[in-house]
């Protein structure tokens, strides 16, 4: 029975185990009507698991979920939807070849029998869009929308199904800072209208400005609950990590000669221009930050620099030489250290052992193989050496790498590159998804490499990271690179404008 006074959502004593791993250990969460709650925690703290329990993707081992006073059956996403829970996933679940309105009504066949009542749906969508500031053309193809617009469609989809509780998983991960602000304004409007909102985040700034209340998870337990008015960045950071973490600072040092120069790099694929005459100059002893919203050409640029892809036009010069036919191993041999954006899909192979992962990109070098045979002794010793030098925990050389945590995996990927002190490094999203302690470690390693004179191209979506580490920054927007500007005197807002493709001279002034 639905009660008029019950809170929108009560989760009590939720526990969930995966084998020997306890993902959630007796978590309680309450959400009032018209309230915005942020669920804050590091990777693996249990935020997403908790929301998956709410939505019925997982069934909890213990505990109860009540929506508007009514207990939800476990493991039934449809029951959750019917009770008024809507979820916006980090990776959208939209069909790109359908229009907005088709996406919204897809899967709701029972509403109107055989034929879809599209005109009515269109009208309802327009109405919802007007009410909450979520303007999207109902007849636009989803594939043509920007990421921010696609997210609006996801939210509209939930509202269309009369969601009264909206759950958003890391909603700002794919947005520019400006789009993020718009999103939170929308959420605020929805809360005024009586909807309840939970959003998952590990960014302290947006938690403090966007939510009424913040619930902090750590290691599957709730470790704190604060009204955002009565807390601070520092307190939340400490709650989230469990201790004080200081990120290292950069010391000024003069930059040297150019070590990596890209000239007029252009990449066209299937009629689309992914990179358009992108050029930059990276010097020894500096970190050049490359910022941009995901999907603006960072990935093709990195692939060309990594030796994975040949540009349609333009050249890459490394340490004064221009390789005729660059390949990954050729670039590594020439002194390039590489950290790919996706450490699971590209940086490592989960079912290979640590030592196999440690040497794979150099396995043809005499150090690790003879004419046919792998020098397994040398390879294992190298892995063990990396583990001790770079403090990789739980890293027996013969262990499969997928059993490592993301932070330790990243230490191995960084370590196998840094160990022989390459003069040039290209690192893409080196701290994405890592917890605070691991981030501080990665930053320290990159600054060390810079101190000894390496030039580092840091491709990142994390503006704080770029401001803290980089000497200069360039922005990439729609495949074009801006001119590089010194980071001294820049702030996150100006970087945000650069990312949106604003004219650089004007912004920097």
């Amino acid at each position, binding site marked *: 029975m639905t009660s008029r006074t019950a809170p929108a959502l009560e989760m009590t004593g939720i526990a969930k185990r*995966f*084998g*020997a*791993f306890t993902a959630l250990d007796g978590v309680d969460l309450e959400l009032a009507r018209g309230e915005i709650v942020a669920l804050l925690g590091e990777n693996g703290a249990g935020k997403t698991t908790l929301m998956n329990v709410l939505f019925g993707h*997982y*069934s909890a081992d213990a505990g109860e979920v009540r929506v508007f006073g009514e207990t939800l059956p*476990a*493991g039934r996403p449809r029951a959750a939807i019917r009770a008024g829970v809507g979820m916006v996933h980090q990776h959208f679940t939209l069909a790109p070849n359908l229009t907005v309105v088709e996406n919204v009504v897809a899967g709701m066949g029972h509403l109107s029998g055989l034929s879809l009542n599209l005109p009515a749906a269109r009208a309802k969508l327009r109405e919802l869009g007007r009410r909450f500031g979520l303007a999207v053309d109902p007849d636009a193809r989803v594939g043509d929308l920007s990421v921010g617009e696609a997210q609006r469609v996801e939210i509209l989809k939930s509202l269309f199904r009369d969601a009264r509780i909206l759950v958003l998983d890391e909603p700002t991960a794919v947005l520019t800072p400006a789009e993020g602000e718009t999103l939170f304004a929308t959420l605020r409007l929805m809360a005024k209208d009586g909807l309840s909102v939970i959003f998952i985040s590990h960014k302290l700034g947006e938690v403090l400005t966007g939510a009424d209340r913040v619930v902090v998870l750590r290691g599957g337990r709730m470790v704190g609950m604060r009204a955002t008015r009565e807390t601070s960045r520092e307190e939340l950071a400490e709650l989230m990590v469990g201790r004080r973490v200081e990120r290292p600072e950069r010391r000024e040092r003069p930059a040297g000669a150019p070590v990596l120069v890209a000239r007029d790099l252009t990449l066209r694929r299937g009629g689309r221009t992914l990179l358009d005459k992108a050029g930059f100059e990276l010097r020894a002893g500096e970190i050049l930050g490359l910022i941009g919203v995901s999907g603006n050409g960072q990935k093709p640029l990195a692939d060309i620099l*990594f*030796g*994975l892809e040949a540009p349609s036009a333009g050249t890459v010069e490394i340490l004064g030489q221009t390789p005729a036919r660059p*390949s*990954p*191993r050729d670039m*590594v041999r020439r002194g390039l250290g*590489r950290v*790919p954006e996706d450490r699971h*899909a*590209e*940086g*490592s*192979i*989960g*079912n*290979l052992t640590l030592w*196999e992962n440690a040497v*794979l*990109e150099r*396995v*043809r070098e005499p150090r690790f*193989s003879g004419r*046919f*045979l*792998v020098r*397994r002794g040398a390879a294992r010793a190298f892995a063990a050496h990396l583990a001790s030098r770079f403090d990789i925990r739980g890293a027996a050389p013969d262990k499969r790498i997928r*059993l490592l945590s993301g932070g330790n995996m990243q230490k191995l990927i960084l370590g196998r590159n840094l160990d022989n002190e390459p003069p040039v490094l290209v690192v893409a999203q080196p701290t994405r998804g890592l917890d605070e302690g691991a981030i501080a470690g990665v930053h320290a390693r990159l600054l060390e490499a810079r101190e000894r004179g390496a030039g580092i191209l840091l491709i990142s979506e994390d503006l704080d990271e770029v401001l803290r580490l980089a000497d200069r920054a360039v922005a990439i927007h729609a495949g074009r690179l801006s001119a590089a500007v010194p980071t001294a005197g820049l702030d996150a807002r100006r970087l945000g404008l650069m990312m949106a493709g604003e004219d650089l001279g004007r912004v920097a002034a």
Partner: protein
Amino acid sequence: MIVERRETRPLVLVVLSPVIAVAVALALAGVLIALAGAPVLDAFRAIAVGAFGSRLAATETLLRACPLILTGLAVAVAFRARLWNIGAEGQLYLGALAVVTLGFSNPLGLPGPLLAVLLLVAGALAGALLLLGPLALRLRFGVDEVVTTLLLNFVVVLLVSMMVEGPLKDPLAFGWPRSVPVLGDAQLPKIVERSRLHLGLVIALGAAILVNLVQSRFVFGLEAKAAGLSPRAAAFAGVPIGATLVKVALLSGGLAGLAGAVEVMGNRGYVSTDLSPGFGYFGIVVAMLANLQPLGAVVAALFAAAMFVGSDAMGRQLGVPSFIADVTVALCLLTMLLALFFSSYRLRRG
């Protein structure tokens, strides 16, 4: 019920899954035997005795295992690199055909053992080249090699049929569609007195050891494994995906071709369209039961061979159709696939 992925695959399950799979398949076969009206336990006893109960039975089982070991290895090598070679049957036949074509006469007057070695190489080469076509189509146009390798099997068998009815037809075979025999000099010697067991067993075991070595110690083995597990990450690490797959295809097709060569040179002496009772297809079962491990393929091949040889004897004694062997071995593939699933996933009540 909810299906959840296990965080890790427990070692116990990895080791036990083929055992459980075989046990379940045998139990299901028992049901079929009972349906055929025979006493189940007696039938299984007859199979065991028929496969291992005498010197002759044991050597017949080993004889049958030779081509199965080689086709099992061929499939294991390919599957490990995610190259879905379903064409071991065709590669086997083409290898056999190459051996007969080059080995029914000896115009250069080569010494027998040298000719034999050359014929083995030719058989392997024929199988290897046959797999390159489907691979090229996959690399160039993205054509699914499951389809192309499978369909090529029928093409090759038709080619064999054409040859043994035509240019290679044995005039002394009373009209039977079979080829002229390989020269006696070039045939593989028997390794056990008063049996049909030939040197092919040693070749097959040697191949298993060699493949094991290549996979565990060679740079190529590591690169092939990486390319199979994650083409993207392997490419990032600089593994040349295309070149690696070409080498894998040569090895895989070569092993299957070698199976055909060995079967002709050691056992039959000639080629005909009934040379293989599905050795190529059962190679898939053998490879899966072995969890794609080369040495495991030897054990799995012995099991399958014992089922075939033992069921023949059981059929003669109890009047149960010996097709029960094909059914049992095929069931093993299904139960093994299920076992693999349950060693990676678990069911929970939801």
